[in-house]
């Protein structure tokens, strides 16, 4: 573990990514305490440019709502959607992939057909349809994003398990009389985790982008403000009020960037082959 942090902290991208992510999380968690007002409240006249009024430092949007407040509350939703939908994808993908890889044969064949089936439908289209069907809400969005993002997880885990399954320490566990569940859970999955973690960090980023795209199409949760919603809502007035779209756009960019950098750092830290030899 110490070794892991050392490698992680040695890569500059990893550090930058961590800083960005920690910052975003702090803002999302603590920000609302400093801005107890709802981001939906119309506090000023519309279209106040940024840096002109101290009360609304980043200006106001088309209805006179505080852009900064939206940014802060939006961090919650965007990060939450990113994290939870990734979790959903992992919860679906990891067991599926593990079972397919471990038991192989017909089970594997069936599960992989099932996965392929989900992969064959373009994921963004499927997400749109799912959200439209379930009616846009934070739950349906998380569910839809999770549902379209698990196939790569399943495939990755399956591949890992497939190769780990033949490892000698797994055979040793079989020989000592362990049950299949125990072997998958204790012997195989912990060792399959590093690439999954790397993938997961990238999936969080993708999920944030996906949420913003859905919001852009008007398929966001109308009761919660998110960055994607802000960009979408501001795009029609981008000519008069660039700040309404630019700030949340930059926020998305930074967090996705941060997560990607973390993914890269993790990759270096968790992949011993790469971390040993210098680049």
């Amino acid at each position, binding site marked *: 573990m110490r070794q892991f942090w050392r490698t992680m902290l040695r890569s500059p991208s990893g550090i930058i990514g961590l800083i960005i992510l920690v910052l975003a999380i702090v803002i999302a968690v603590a920000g609302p305490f400093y801005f107890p007002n709802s981001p939906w409240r119309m506090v000023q006249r519309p279209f106040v440019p940024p840096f002109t009024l101290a009360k609304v430092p980043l200006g106001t949007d088309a209805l006179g709502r505080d852009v900064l407040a939206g940014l802060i509350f939006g961090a919650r939703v965007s990060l939450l959607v990113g994290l939870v939908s990734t979790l959903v994808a992992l919860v679906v993908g990891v067991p599926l992939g593990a079972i397919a890889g471990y038991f192989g044969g017909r089970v594997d064949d069936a599960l992989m*057909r099932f996965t*392929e*089936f989900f*992969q*064959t*439908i*373009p*994921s*963004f*289209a499927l997400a*749109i*349809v*799912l959200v*439209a*069907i379930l*009616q846009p809400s934070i739950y349906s969005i998380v569910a839809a994003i999770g549902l379209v993002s698990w196939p790569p997880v399943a495939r990755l885990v399956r591949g890992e398990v497939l190769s780990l399954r033949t490892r000698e320490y797994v055979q040793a566990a079989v020989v000592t009389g362990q049950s299949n569940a125990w072997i998958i859970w204790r012997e195989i999955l912990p060792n399959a985790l590093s690439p999954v973690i790397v993938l997961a960090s990238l999936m969080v*980023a993708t999920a944030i*982008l996906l949420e*913003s*795209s859905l919001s*852009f*199409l008007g398929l966001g949760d109308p009761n919660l403000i998110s960055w*994607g919603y802000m*960009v*979408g809502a501001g*795009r029609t007035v*981008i*000519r008069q009020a660039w700040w309404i*779209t630019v700030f949340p*756009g930059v926020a*998305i*960019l*930074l967090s*996705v*960037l941060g997560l*990607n*950098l973390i993914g890269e750092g993790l990759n270096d830290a968790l992949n011993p082959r*790469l971390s040993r*030899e210098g*680049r």
Partner: protein
Amino acid sequence: MLSFIAQRVVKGVIVLLAIIVLNFFLIRLAPGDPAVVMAGEAGASDQIFVAQLREKFGLDRPLPEQLLIYVKGIASLDLGFSFRQQAPVAKLIAERLPATLLLTLTAFAISLGLGILFGVLAARFAGTFLDTAITVLALIFYATPLFWIALIAILLFSVWADWLPSFGYETVGAGYTGLRHALDVGAHLVMPAATLGLFFMATYTRMTRASMLEVKRLDFVKTARAKGLRDGIILRRHVLRNALLPVVTLAGVHAGTLVGGAVLTETVFAWPGIGRLMYDALIQRDYNLLLGVFVVSSAMVLIFNLVTDLVYRLVDPRIEYAS
């Protein structure tokens, strides 16, 4: 080879059938149906009117029967009829497919070409400023919401500079033919294709770079160096060729999904493609059309996957041996 293709086709058909059945029910889970939509648009409605519409669409029959009718149609390569648009689904899709293919394949070519180029450069100069610059730039393209880039691009190139048309597939009514027409379409294509392409480019850049660095470490590269080969040749012949294998796989997957995945780009640039057609069909609960788009784009994915595998076999002699 032939048996391999036959086998894949059979599997593909099974997957497609599953897609049809699942989506058939999935779509009908959504609240509201075409009759409701049309009632809303008519500016007046009563139950008789809605019931008439339902009957007209065949929506008054039990679901399994509707499914059976649909599947029967598919079996004879008939994608059904869009009552909304008063036209066969196949025709509606066929009208849009060329535009989508043009857009996505161009974007694909851009992303793959530039992605590999930049990936190679980054790997070649790993650790230098160039590497960092490429990596950061690629990441930024990847991390910026697609629609946002599109908006900015329109502002820059259409509104302010007035270099490129901001919407559509061609200059409507200009009646260009031949080369003029090609140039015209090309001008319209630049922004959407670039927007879409840049996003995917990032993935290829990073993948190529990582793959190159990985392959560089392998023993046969050492062998090549021990032969006294020039670095350029080693890079091209030994490293790049091997490094491209995973890229090819990924590209195959992408190429397929691009067909149905360009909804946003098509929306922002008013590109008359499949993605937009799908979105409209969804919004209007045009069941047959929506299902048709799914079937076609899934079929595309399967076809592209098959093509990838075939390409892969060409590139990697080991595969053929294995089967």
